[in-house]
């Protein structure tokens, strides 16, 4: 970013991958590939008129999967936001489930076809049902964190959002509350510098989001969102603090939005073509691949095999979801209240 208002410093070198095994890393890498392959397929299906609306995680996948990999799905709670497609996969959603949601099918586990895809929810996985306004999950996460603190079982609540959400009062109210009561919450901001068409320099006063943590007396960390190991280490440290009763942390992952805001948006209409071309070269997936190869955890052969397997998964998921039944019209009035 060119503006002097936006943080433009250098990131520290990538940390040691302590505690990470090859198995964990390859599983994470497969989630990243899966998210991208599913997203590619969703765009094809959207352009073919089969899917109404998509919000792409393109450019955010590595940061999202790295964060979730540092946590414990099944034990922790996750308040995700609409761009968290890769995070949802890392939390345990299957490709078929996410395709069922994209096609608004009855078997969509998040909402049975009621919400737009991107509002993830699954009680058994600890993924708290999302919604489509910006930021309300942040004070909700503070309340979940308070409950988890009272229960004292060492679980934490992870809540994610974009930098646009940090302009909402709910961001400040939620972080303030969690900090006051030392709630076990991780506030994870995926800063892609654009809230639809509004750039960070018209959104965030001061150098960035991480600095805001200081006002609430909690740690604020900025990490390169394309560095799996940096994001993982930051979230792991925030998780350690949360589980030890030391309270919440704020992490700002710097990412790039390699797609328009949604399938109803075209960022070429309001963004500088040179900047867009420059960002297209900052895809985090080739970088993760290189990092894994450089550290000896991945070979070209394994990479090809993973991509082939993921491609087949996407084919199967698409076929199954497209063939799955739509919600029955008679279910429209169900689940308004407990007794209906």
């Amino acid at each position, binding site marked *: 970013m060119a503006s002097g208002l936006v943080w433009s410093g250098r990131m520290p070198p990538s940390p040691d991958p302590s505690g990470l095994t090859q198995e964990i890393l390859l599983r994470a890498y497969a989630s990243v590939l899966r998210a991208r392959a599913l997203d590619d397929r969703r765009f094809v299906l959207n352009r073919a008129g089969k899917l109404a609306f998509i919000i792409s995680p393109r450019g955010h996948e590595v940061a999202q999967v790295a964060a979730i990999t540092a946590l414990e799905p099944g034990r922790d709670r996750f308040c995700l936001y609409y761009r968290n497609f890769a995070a949802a996969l890392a939390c345990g959603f299957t490709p078929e489930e996410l395709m069922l949601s994209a096609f608004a099918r009855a078997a969509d586990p998040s909402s*049975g076809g009621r*919400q737009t895809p991107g509002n993830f929810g699954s*009680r058994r996985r600890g993924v708290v049902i999302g919604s489509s306004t910006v930021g*309300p999950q942040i004070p909700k996460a503070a309340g979940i964190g308070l409950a988890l603190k009272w*229960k004292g079982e060492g679980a934490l609540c992870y809540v994610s959002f974009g930098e646009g959400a940090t302009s909402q009062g*709910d961001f400040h*109210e*939620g972080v303030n509350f969690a900090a006051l009561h030392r709630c076990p919450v991780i506030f994870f901001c995926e800063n892609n510098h654009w809230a639809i068409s509004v750039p960070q320099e018209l959104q965030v006063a001061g150098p960035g989001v991480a600095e805001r943590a200081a006002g609430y007396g909690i740690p604020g960390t900025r990490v390169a969102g394309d560095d799996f190991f940096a994001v993982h280490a930051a979230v792991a440290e925030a998780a350690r603090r949360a589980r030890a009763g030391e309270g919440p942390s704020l992490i700002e992952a710097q990412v790039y939005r390699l797609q328009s805001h949604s399938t109803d948006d075209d960022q070429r209409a309001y963004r500088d073509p040179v900047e867009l071309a420059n960002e297209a070269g900052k895809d985090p997936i080739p970088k993760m691949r290189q990092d894994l190869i450089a550290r000896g955890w991945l070979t070209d052969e394994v990479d090809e095999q993973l991509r082939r397997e993921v491609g087949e998964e996407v084919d199967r998921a698409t076929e199954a979801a497209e063939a799955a039944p739509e919600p029955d019209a008679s279910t429209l009035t169900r689940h*308004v209240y407990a007794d209906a």
Partner: protein
Amino acid sequence: MPERTLVQAVRDALFEEMARDPRVCVLGEDVGRKGGVFKATEGLQKQFGPERVLDTPLAESSIAGVAQGLALEGFIPVAEMQFADYSFPAFNQIVNEIAKVRYRSNGDFSCPLVIRAPTGGGVRGALYHSQSVEAFYAHVPGLKVVLPSTPADAKGLLKASIRDPDPVIFLEPKKLYRAVRAEMAEGEAALLPLGQAAVARRGEHLTAITYGYLRAVTIEAAERLAAEDISVEVIDLRTLRPWDMETCAHSVEKTGRLAVIYEANRTGGFGAEVAAELAERCFASLDAPVTRIASPDVPAMPFSPALEHAFMLNPDRVAEGLRRVARY
């Protein structure tokens, strides 16, 4: 049985439910140390501790948001909005989040909680401590809305709201907080079901449906009309969503005349919904136009006593409205 005011009845309901169920907790501005600006939570923090009776920051959206988080984790929060007028910063949390949790998750999640707020005017509260907000929330599927008018109803309905599996907006007419004392039951005997209206006065010629502070006003107006040989049946809705259409329709079919009396401004008030529904349902029984007796369409109740008096319905105004319907 002890005699209690309405605000004491609220406090008793909270005390009994907290003692009965360790999941019940209270949060809001000034609810702990001070015991609430109206003393509705007095003594609770001393009894149950500063976590279960939590003084929150002055930020209503997060009061509702945190309450929702607690409810999603299995606690039963009773959040206080200090005045109903102050619930609007929490409107998104209440309407878009809390009310829709069950629906948007296709029944996977639920959010049982209570949001209490003092409502209505007539206490020199002016524009921002007098508003009647019930229509905003009663419009929202997924919410229940309760608005009691007697100490026993307040206690019984609050206890039932805390035990309800769905989110309840519980509005307390602040003008009635200390207006009367009444004997009331304790424990399970105090419980009252949501969704049931009360026939507050039997009558033959005209049905007057109301709720909240105007129950007593409407009964007084009805007594005046009795001297003119007009017999008015007064129904107190008590729960606005879901409201008791059966009891109301039964009365209108008997009397053939209906007036709906409410303190909110006339246009789009909850009484407009009652009037429309009963006009549709009881059309063949009606001998007079269904009539609303409501407050004027000004943004809120002014501070000046003269202007406040001009705004508020009173027995004279209600009696005049009822008389018109009776004589049509």
